[in-house]
């Protein structure tokens, strides 16, 4: 097997500009458009029904309007026969059943309830807070673990790479207006774990090489380390992407956005573990002494 020798670090500047641009676009979109929060986070009512025969959405809207349900969003969900009705917060305990019977009432329409969800406004807000807190907690714990197992510079670099991945994935959801619900948040945390996994493998190799390649400059050493782990990084990402594509295509509507978040996140995560973390390490002037403490010679000098 031949180890590749791609001058990754020579592309530092281009990569930095690329990453920064992506981050700026993402932040810009998050600031102006925000995220399309799903029911979990906004609160509200959602009813998913399945028709025997595909209905005209306009008819469904009109029917609901006639019965006094204004301000509703009616969409197809996965297939033309499945319809989702979303409503803002105006909950009564029987709303779901009322809407269902309204839809069924239309003569001979054969409609069955697939699911109905109601989330109170306060619960939605709490879930949002909890999710954000969980994300911060995850990053903090990762930072501590890496600082203990490796060294502070490695911990800053890997957490920065993670934040990079999270922001860009969020940006993707914002730009393409994909709904952001609890499962997407879960996927985002999984991306943190996954991307970290990749980054740590690279960092591990850098640490090892500092021990055995004594005369190599950090710049070349980091480049070699990335090349040595490239085979593994790509293959693992590839197998993971395979299964994610399968999930995305076959997993059904319920986990569609979930697998999309993972797909985007893992592509970005693979990119960032090759380029971003190592780049930052060099920018922070990583040295052999950071990992292997200089021998404590001073003590002996004091002896007579």
């Amino acid at each position, binding site marked *: 097997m031949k180890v590749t020798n791609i001058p990754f670090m020579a592309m530092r500047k281009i990569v930095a500009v690329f990453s920064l641009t992506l981050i700026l676009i993402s932040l810009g979109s998050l600031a102006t458009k925000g995220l399309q929060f799903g029911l979990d986070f906004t609160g509200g009512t959602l009813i998913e029904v399945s028709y025997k025969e595909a209905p005209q959405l306009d008819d469904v809207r009109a029917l609901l309007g006639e019965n006094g349900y204004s301000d509703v969003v009616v969409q197809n969900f996965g297939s033309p026969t499945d319809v989702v009705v979303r409503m803002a917060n105006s909950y009564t305990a*029987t709303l779901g059943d009322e809407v269902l019977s309204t839809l069924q009432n239309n003569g001979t329409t054969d409609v069955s309830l697939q699911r109905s969800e*109601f989330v109170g406004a306060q619960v939605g807000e709490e879930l949002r807070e909890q999710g954000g807190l969980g994300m911060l907690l995850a990053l903090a714990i990762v930072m501590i673990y890496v600082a203990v197992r490796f060294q502070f510079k490695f911990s800053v670099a890997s957490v920065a790479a993670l934040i990079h991945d999270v922001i860009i994935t969020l940006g993707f959801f914002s730009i393409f207006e994909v709904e952001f619900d609890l499962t997407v948040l879960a996927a985002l945390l999984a991306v943190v774990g996954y991307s970290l996994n990749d980054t740590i493998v690279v960092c591990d190799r850098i640490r090892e090489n500092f021990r055995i390649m004594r005369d190599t400059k950090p710049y070349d050493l980091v480049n070699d380390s990335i090349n040595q782990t490239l085979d593994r990084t790509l293959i693992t990402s590839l*197998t993971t992407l*395979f*299964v*994610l594509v399968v999930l995305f295509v076959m997993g059904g509507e319920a*986990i569609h956005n979930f697998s999309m978040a*993972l797909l985007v996140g893992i592509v970005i995560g693979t990119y960032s573990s090759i380029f971003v973390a190592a780049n930052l390490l060099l920018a922070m002037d990583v040295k052999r002494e950071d990992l292997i403490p200089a021998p404590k010679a001073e003590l002996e000098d004091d002896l007579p």
Partner: protein
Amino acid sequence: MLNKYPLWKYLLILLVLALGLLYAFPNLYPDDPALQLSTQKATAVVDEQALQKAKSALSKANIDLKEAELTSAGGTLRFNSGEDQLAAKPVVAAALGDDYVTALNLVPTTPEWLSSLGAGPAKLGLDLRGGVHFLLEVDTPAALKQKLEVSSSEMKAVLRKDRVRYRSVDIEDGVLSIRFLQQPDLASAETLLKKDFSEYRYATRQDGSDFYLDVSFTEAAKKEIESYALKQNLTTLRNRVNELGVAEPLVQRQGSNRIVVELPGVQDTAAAKRIIGATANLEFHLEAGLDSNGSDVETLTFRDGSGRTARLERDLIITGDSVSDASSSFDENGRPQVNISLDAKGGKQMSKVTRSAVGRNMGVVFIEHKSRSRFVEKDGKMEEVRRSYSEKSIISLATIQTTLGNSFRITGLDSPRESSELALLLRAGALAAPIYFVEERTIGPSLGAENIKLGVDSAQIGLLVVMVFMLLYYKVFGLFANISLALNIVLLMACMSLLSATLTLPGIAGIVLTMGMAVDANVLIFSRIKEELASGVPNQQAIHSGFNRAFTTIFDANITTLLVAVILFAVGTGPVKGFAVTLSLGILTSMFTAIVVTRAQVNLVYGGRKNKKLYI
């Protein structure tokens, strides 16, 4: 010798894998749709006779029964299909009558010898099995207010008894203020009340010429009342859910003032909601005499919508809390009625009051605590404001013919449904504080089945794709990795079953994701071995150092992912928790299979042999 495991290590690995297979095995047996028969009454038992009754009713209705058996918890009727099960429920319920509870359930078909070893299939989450999930919030401020109101009338009685003159008593924002005209009255009231009502905090103030005693709960008392209200509500909800007849329900406290209720397999969510959320209770009052004082009388309307009213004494005889048993039936004219039995204390109180009131009328009052939600704009944000109120109406007003004892009946209900629900509520007990639905998720059974199919299909295809890729890329070693991967899934399922963790759709996605990631450890090891071989190291040495040097990397990388998964478990709810569970279990089992099991295979095939070519 290099790359040789001692025999005991192989045996140990085999043992672990055999156990894994054993405990994962029950998942291959599909569950049977079934009806679960149980009884809440001491007088009724689920026995052969009851089963026979159900069986004959089913055969009369032309519904195929797969199997009927008696279990320690009651009886189980298994069916061949979900449609049969649904059709059978009303038939069986009608045949057995009110004394039995009939619940829809999915019953495992694990063979006897497996279940005797404690093996069983993994539990399915609501999103896979269908059912309802409720998150209820207990209105603890209302519980505090109720308690304060009760205390206020008790305090008034104490003050009156000791001839302490007060002007007025008001309750506002959780503070009870008693107004006095003279300072000595205030002082003696404070000493009196402090002695009798120690759970309160007392403060005095002067406003103009008036003196006030402000009574409020101490923090400890507040906590105690709140936690009592929650506990009481939990108990009541558990009773109600049991009465509803749901198999394997979950009623659990969440946080300081919330309760989660999960009812798998429930179809009629409207009825479930009505029963769970009901705050109805009964009160028994005497009708007020013509000469009674206006402030001791309450005028209430009748429930039948006729607009009639009646004047009842405010003092109550007993409440629904004294009811020990209640059942619904019909009176001589075919109208619905509820038969009520009182507990000893309630019965004594009832006979004491009615003995001296023969010939007078007694009113049965139906109370419902309700709330109205309004949205108010506050600081630029819409905020939900709840105002709770109670609705009282008279169910019946009847002349007391003789002294009433422990059991009697009430009539005047609208429909058989109302009488049976009222009986249920009286049996299960009232809620100590009103509750609100803050979250509700209903998943239809067909969606659940569809989700299972989608999940299993994508898991199979995902597995196939990864395996083909590994085989092509790593050849013989790829085969080792594939065997490990398959065993990893077996172990993962075994762990899920053993921990009786709940499998959800995101959980299945977690398993699929683990497949992609589980081969990662093997990829790390194999690329190390390739590297060593490339630098001219002999085969055996390459295998050895490949495994050894990859270990720390695998360990570090997996521990961090595990940490994140644990956090996900902590912050997530429902389906997301399921994802965290499969993800973290998958990481643990994959470390075992990818390192130990793969190594064992490599050692078996290549270990100790010289110069054999490595197909990697």
